[in-house]
């Protein structure tokens, strides 16, 4: 986002926020939202999409969470949830949580430290019960074990210090599961300790939640329930929001070009236009000639005009950056002066010349152009940037054609390495290098689609993870980020901005400006009658 736009947004948010907290919250009413599709399941630990976290986060509690009244997710905004307090030991490898007493699961059973232990044993594949899918197993690479010290105290034992471990626990993706409920049941009929109880999911029709009358945070939630109507057609659901059929849109569902229409037709709508912490990037099959040649890969990075992508796809409202979301919205991203020194982020005319030279060195040129295929999902969000990329690659003698792949076959295609260049989108669950680096670039990570593996960098990943000096850690993260861009590990194109809109009667909701997955607890939200 441009600084000017951001400042305007901040001013608007401040104006809106003042009456929110000045006015007394009113209890009652059901929040009506639309949902863009069927959630794959109700088990947050098994999924990696806000199609699940958005509706189901309110069913659960975490040990700690990102403050739902703040618009940033960072270590500074972590607050207690099921934990009452926490402390690190002197070696910084043990973190102990004191737990709330008297908390009950939705089925009436008591919550204890055993449930916390069970949850993380499940995530590490240690328990008897197994998750069908475990997309964030890599997050706990440093977790040695979890112990329930007594009913109300739990300790996480780490192999090395990891200050960001707390941020992982605060994510919307880190709810505490009940020991006594099987993972299969959690997919279809999730039980939590949270402010809302799951009622039913009717496939392709609706998802319903009601207020948990015994919620342990007294007086909350304010809403009587949440109802999601599943609306597949974007035109229909946006028209539905405009016609006041819904109180809020799906996260990030309003694209920047669409935002203008929404504001024109419903001027009262409150829209948060923020970075989603989802980035456009490309994946290159480094095992297939000529893309096994680092010069060819680097030339591609030089050819990409990131400003043009942002202008065309997001009307200029996006952010150019590396792996981490850049400031001012991102906590860990490279500042502009550091970014400008990274290959591919300098003057475009000079960069294209460098790209052409590298291609000539690799044996390609105006008379010997390289034919290639850009593969991507057959969805507009993926197809559109792929078409722009194909156009830009022409400048460095690459004639690429588009190959669209049906959604269901995308990961199978990538896993089989049945592609040359792929247009990809990557969402970050938490704005933290421990998530971004390990998930997407660590050797052997399931979500490291290209199989990029650099042992030296891996050692730096672990080093930054253990650093408690934030400024020093930031500098190391920038160094790693720049190196990843230079290695063309998964070259970044742009960080994607989009809007989430609400009717003005929806109060107490704060959208985070550096993440899309952790602001859906909804216990502070109320409807102005």
């Amino acid at each position, binding site marked *: 986002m441009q600084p000017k736009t951001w400042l305007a947004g901040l001013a608007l948010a401040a104006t809106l926020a003042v009456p929110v907290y000045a006015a007394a919250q009113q209890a009652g009413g059901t929040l*009506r939202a639309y949902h863009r599709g*069927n959630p*794959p*399941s109700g088990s947050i630990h*098994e*999924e*990696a*999409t806000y*199609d*699940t976290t958005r509706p189901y986060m309110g069913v659960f509690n975490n040990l700690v969470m990102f403050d739902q009244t703040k618009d940033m997710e960072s270590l500074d905004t972590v607050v207690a949830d099921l934990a009452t307090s926490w402390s690190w030991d002197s070696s910084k490898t043990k973190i102990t949580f004191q737990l709330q007493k008297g908390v009950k699961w939705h089925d009436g059973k008591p919550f204890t430290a055993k449930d916390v232990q069970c949850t993380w044993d499940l995530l590490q594949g240690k328990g008897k019960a197994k998750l*069908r*899918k*475990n*997309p964030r197993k890599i997050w706990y690479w440093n977790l040695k074990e979890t112990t329930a010290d007594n009913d109300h105290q739990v300790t996480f034992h780490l192999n090395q210090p990891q200050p960001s471990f707390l941020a992982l626990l605060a994510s919307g993706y880190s709810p505490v599961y009940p020991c006594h409920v099987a993972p*299969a049941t959690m*997919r*279809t009929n999730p039980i939590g300790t949270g402010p809302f109880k799951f009622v039913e*999911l*009717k*496939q*392709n*029709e*609706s998802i319903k939640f009601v207020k948990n009358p015994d919620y342990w945070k007294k007086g909350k939630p304010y809403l009587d329930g949440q109802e999601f*109507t*599943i*609306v*597949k*057609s974007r*035109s*229909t*659901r946006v*028209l*539905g929001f*405009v*016609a*006041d*059929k819904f109180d809020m849109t799906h996260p990030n569902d309003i694209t920047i070009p669409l935002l203008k229409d929404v504001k024109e*037709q419903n001027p009262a709508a409150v829209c948060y236009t923020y970075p989603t912490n989802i980035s456009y990037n490309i994946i290159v099959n480094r095992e297939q000639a000529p893309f096994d040649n680092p010069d060819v890969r680097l030339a591609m990075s030089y050819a990409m005009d990131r400003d043009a992508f942002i202008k065309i796809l997001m009307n200029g409202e996006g952010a150019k950056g590396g792996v981490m979301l850049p400031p001012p919205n991102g906590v860990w991203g490279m500042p502009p002066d550091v970014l400008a020194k990274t290959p591919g982020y300098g003057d475009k005319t000079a960069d294209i010349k460098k790209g052409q030279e590298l291609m000539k060195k690799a044996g390609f040129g105006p008379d010997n152009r390289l034919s290639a295929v850009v593969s991507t999902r057959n969805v507009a969000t993926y197809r559109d940037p792929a078409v722009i990329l194909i156009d830009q690659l022409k400048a460095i003698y690459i004639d690429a054609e588009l190959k669209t792949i*049906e*959604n*269901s*076959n*995308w*990961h*199978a295609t990538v*896993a089989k390495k049945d592609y040359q260049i792929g247009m990809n989108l990557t969402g970050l669950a938490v704005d933290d290098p421990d998530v971004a680096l390990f998930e997407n670039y660590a050797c052997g990570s*399931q*979500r490291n689609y290209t199989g990029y593996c650099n042992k030296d960098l891996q050692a730096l990943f672990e080093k930054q993870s253990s650093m408690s000096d934030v400024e020093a850690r930031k500098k190391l993260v920038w160094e790693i980020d720049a190196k990843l861009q230079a290695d063309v590990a998964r070259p970044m194109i742009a960080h994607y901005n989009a809007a989430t809109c609400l009717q003005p009667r929806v109060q107490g909701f704060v959208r985070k400006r550096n993440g899309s997955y952790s602001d859906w607890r909804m216990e502070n939200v109320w409807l102005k009658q």
Partner: protein
Amino acid sequence: MASYIIRRTLLMVVTLIGLSIVIFAMLRLVPGNIADILFDAAGFIDPAEKAQLEEELGLADPIPVQYWNWIVGLLQGDLGFSYVSELPTIDEIAPRLPITAKLAVLALFFSVIFGLPLGVISAVNQNSKLDYFLRVISLSGLSLPSFWLALLILMAFVSWFGSMPIYTNPPDNLWDELLLYSVPAAAVGFRSSALIMRLTRSSMLEVLRQDYIRTAKAKGASDNSVNYGHALSNAVLPVITIIGIEAAFLIGGLIVTETVFNIPGVARFLVEAIQWRDYPIVQNLVMFIGLVVVVTNFLVDLLYVALDPRIKYE
């Protein structure tokens, strides 16, 4: 007649067996399965976990075994479980069938109630201004894509009334239900009514030139009696055929309409199930639709006998 009914019934059984093989084979020919899709939602594929999931869902069995298991289950009334919701297939399909059935019947009602009389009016007023006007309307009905028309209707509702007729909650009473379904039914029925209107017109024009029509007019029969009594009853046979075919094809038209108006019927559900490779849902639903089509065709054939005494089946 009895032997004809027995023959047709046996033929229906053979058709349904053929359909079951075709749908089963086609689903397996499409790349990817539910395991791929579920892992796609998790953003990765773990080959070992995927194999485990395929084992759990019976997808690792040989294809003929999978087919046999399905058919045996079907004959015993066990339709299996949806891969996505993990609920019994019958519980997923049954509540959606009446919704689509109501929409389809209403759409068919609209198409017949408008298409048939307007076709007659157009024919008896051949080459008049009214005829030209009705022909333009029918041509536009045939050429306007139903998704475009449906979106246009929604936009018009939002713009003029600040509201829109989409499904967000089950209707409370019959009147609400009628209001909710009438707009999408009109949108989807418009094309069918245009087709019926054109066919009725051409069929009527042919019949109106017959000698017995001239005889009826010479005997002093009224225009209404000639047009609706003598002519229409003879012109309606090809129209009945088309109505039968349209009823069968309506499910295709309803996919788009159900999506745009967000109606949770079986047509949209079927498309979703195909996208998710939810084999138990797709197989059983297609079989059911196949059954409806085959039975509808059979009933239309029987209707011929009732409408035209000259037709006899042996």
